[in-house]
């Protein structure tokens, strides 16, 4: 049993906050809520809306038609034709089923325009047949504005005289965790031993900066002059011994490219949180897409190994963040946590806690006189030490074991080959971290990565004979594992929030297998699960 609500209005009308209150109320009562957030690149004066899918079973995505809708502000009319048969739309808009006049109502209670949304929330609760007390309780989070919001909500509830479509189903009791990707990455980073987060604001990576700047834990979030300053300082701080994460989106990541290459040759551990939005360039800054994948995989000039991890939901983000730090420190590499706006800014409900495949480590050795910063080893991985306790060196030039510059043919080869061996070692390490996951059963296979997971998992439940291969490590790429799954399937398609279907190219590069069927979406919006189920069905017809 499930239903879906859209809350739409103008930027600045408290849409996101309204959605949060409703979500948290339902989650606290044992429901599962998925909350999709849609907003433009503007502060006020345009449209915002949230879509809440609420169910008694886990749900990880939404679709585009609604059982209930709050529509206010001048931009929301397009939602009118996204109502289900018996759906109830409430609001100020011409054409809604239950038209209301919240500005009149708030005048009655002598309140400010800003609580209009509370009036409509109250009305929504009446329409859903839900206890107004539950809503009023959730409103306690409004701080000093609590009281007035509560009064407005009660007033809305009382005033509403439209249809009622009572939501009544039993939910299982148990723990419920309500979390966005940004929150998961932030807390996951703290949990994984991060000391410093360094960033320059860029949507949709910015929430992590805001969250980490506010936490009480003994970590620091520091905004620096620009992205080049950020990544350079990140490498400097890591060289000095700190556990560092930097964060950005495509444009900032592009600016970091030279320093990412420096990471490759200097072998200084670092984690980069890279949160995609549709490009090229500024693109569509507040929407979602996965079009930067190949760019990230191939970032930085020269040849060096890196790790690119694409978690599929906030719980995975929490878990995989630990792996990102672990691998970065253990193998002195760059770990990229590749996510996107959809994962970062949607809220998911989970009923269990994450588990970790790794333990955190700074991987520091005690320096002795003969410590070598780039020791030639069989597995290509050199022990890590930091300045302050002895001599440690890092360099952007090709170098010998001590870190001194070399130009001689033989010496160059030795160090290049050390790094090649490390790439191999890293590959082996990643094999142990469940780089792929298969969901469902069936001879048909859909393959994807990252935030599309939610819609796919929800969609294949509706399909027969279809399973889903999620690739969580894009680099090192789990070639054998992926090949095996494809070869065991009768029909295969990839799914990607992009225009070209880059995962197909990546699979072909690594396995030789060509996947011609591509389900793509490149309008900045995530897949709806029903929309996706239809497309998969169509594709496999």
């Amino acid at each position, binding site marked *: 049993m499930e239903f879906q609500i859209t809350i739409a209005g103008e930027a600045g009308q408290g849409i996101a906050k309204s959605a949060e209150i409703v979500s948290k109320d339902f989650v606290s009562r044992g429901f599962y809520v998925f909350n999709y957030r849609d907003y433009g690149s503007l502060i006020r004066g345009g449209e915002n809306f949230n879509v809440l899918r609420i169910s008694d079973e886990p749900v990880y995505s939404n679709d585009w038609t609604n059982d209930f809708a709050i529509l206010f502000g001048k931009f929301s009319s397009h939602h009118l034709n996204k109502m289900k048969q018996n759906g109830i739309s409430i609001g100020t808009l011409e054409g809604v089923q239950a038209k209301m006049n919240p500005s009149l109502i708030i005048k009655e209670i002598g309140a400010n325009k800003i609580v209009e949304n509370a009036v409509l929330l109250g009305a929504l609760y009446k329409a859903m047949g839900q206890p107004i007390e539950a809503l009023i309780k959730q409103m306690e989070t409004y701080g000093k504005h609590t009281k007035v919001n509560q009064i407005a909500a009660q007033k809305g509830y009382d005033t509403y005289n439209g249809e009622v479509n009572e939501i009544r189903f039993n939910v299982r009791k148990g723990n419920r965790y309500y979390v966005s990707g940004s929150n998961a990455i932030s807390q996951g980073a703290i*949990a994984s031993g991060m000391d410093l987060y360094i960033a320059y604001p860029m949507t949709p990576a910015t929430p992590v900066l805001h969250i980490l700047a506010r936490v009480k834990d003994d970590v620091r979030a520091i905004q620096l002059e620009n992205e080049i300053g950020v990544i350079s300082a990140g490498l*400097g701080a890591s060289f000095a011994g700190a556990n560092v994460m930097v964060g950005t989106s495509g444009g900032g990541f592009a600016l970091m490219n030279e320093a990412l290459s420096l990471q490759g040759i200097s072998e200084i551990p670092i984690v980069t949180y890279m949160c995609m939005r549709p490009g090229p360039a500024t693109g569509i800054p507040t929407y979602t897409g996965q079009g930067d994948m190949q760019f990230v995989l191939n970032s930085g000039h020269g040849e060096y190994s890196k790790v690119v991890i694409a978690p599929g939901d906030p719980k995975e983000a929490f878990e995989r963040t630990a792996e990102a730090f672990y691998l970065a420190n253990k193998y002195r590499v760059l770990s990229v946590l590749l996510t996107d706006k959809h994962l970062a800014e949607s809220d998911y409900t989970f009923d269990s806690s994450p588990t970790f495949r790794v333990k955190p480590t700074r991987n520091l050795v005690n320096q002795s006189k003969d410590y070598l910063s780039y020791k030639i080893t069989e597995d290509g991985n050199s022990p890590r030490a930091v300045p302050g306790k002895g001599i440690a060196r890092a360099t952007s030039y090709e170098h010998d074991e001590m870190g001194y510059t070399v130009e001689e043919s033989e010496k160059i080869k030795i160090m290049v080959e050390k790094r090649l061996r490390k790439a191999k070692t890293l590959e082996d390490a990643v094999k142990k971290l469940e780089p792929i996951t298969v969901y469902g059963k069936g001879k048909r296979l859909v393959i994807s990565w990252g935030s599309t997971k939610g819609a796919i998992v929800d969609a294949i439940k509706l399909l027969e004979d279809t399973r889903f291969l999620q690739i969580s490590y894009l680099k090192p790429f789990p070639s054998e594992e992926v090949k095996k799954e494809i070869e065991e399937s009768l029909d295969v398609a990839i799914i990607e929030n992009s225009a070209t279907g880059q995962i197909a190219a990546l699979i072909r590069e690594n396995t030789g297998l060509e996947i011609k069927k591509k389900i793509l979406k490149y309008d900045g919006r995530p897949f709806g699960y029903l929309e996706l189920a239809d497309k998969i069905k169509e594709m496999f017809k």
Partner: protein
Amino acid sequence: MINLNTSEQNTWCPGCHNFVILSCAKKAVSELINEGHAKHEDFVTVTGIGCHAKLYDYINTSGFYGLHGRAIPTANGITLGNPKLKVMTFAGDGDVYAEGISHFINAARVNPNYALFVNNNKIFALTTGQVTPTSEKGFPGRSTPKGNPFTPMNPVSLALEAGASFVAREYSLDVKNLTETMKAAIKHKGFAYVDIIQPCITFHNFTEYVKDKMYRLNGPFEYKKAMEKAKEWDYSDSADAKIPVGIFYEEERPTLSDLFDNKNWSEAYPERKINSALWERFKV
């Protein structure tokens, strides 16, 4: 005594002033160690890319041979990662005033705690002789054979304007004063900037020009006077210039790592434990 030499083959041009700067740096470090100001293992030499930057190979301290133009932000990070380290940052005029000028302006304002030495030969030397922002107008660099069209920047007054808390100029061949100022810069709490006039004997030898024009300041001065002094020479090749050297300005204020209350993280938390309990923060 600590041996600060390395066994790397030196590839500076014979007679290059960088040899002198190197030996002053070693002298400064070694005296600071002897005076108990810091331990050998606390020193970190950070460099950009250019002739100057080869210093990384020739001094036996911890070191970070950074990217062209990025010595400053790298050093910023080192002080954020462990504020106890003594960081000496060596960069070129190309490094700092061209490629990396954004970081210079920012560092002057946010006051990271380290010394920045700019080996200013008014030329991109390692790339064989193109003009930099401090090259004099008319100088025929290899990308401007008809003469540099631009007026030079005055990085000393710019640093003062941007808020640097320690500003000095020295000459590469003045061993005694250069060493002393280096020590003062390293000891300074905050961003200590020293522009080292270093004629490049191969691509831009203005030794004759500067030689008789330099005079020593009895600084540091208060800000306004410092600025006046800084403006005495505009980095041009005007015949009647007077070139003040020494410390222009010094002020103490909180450093970047003070402002964020940073620590020596790896010592404070040798191993942070995975704290999966944080997930509970999401419980509704």
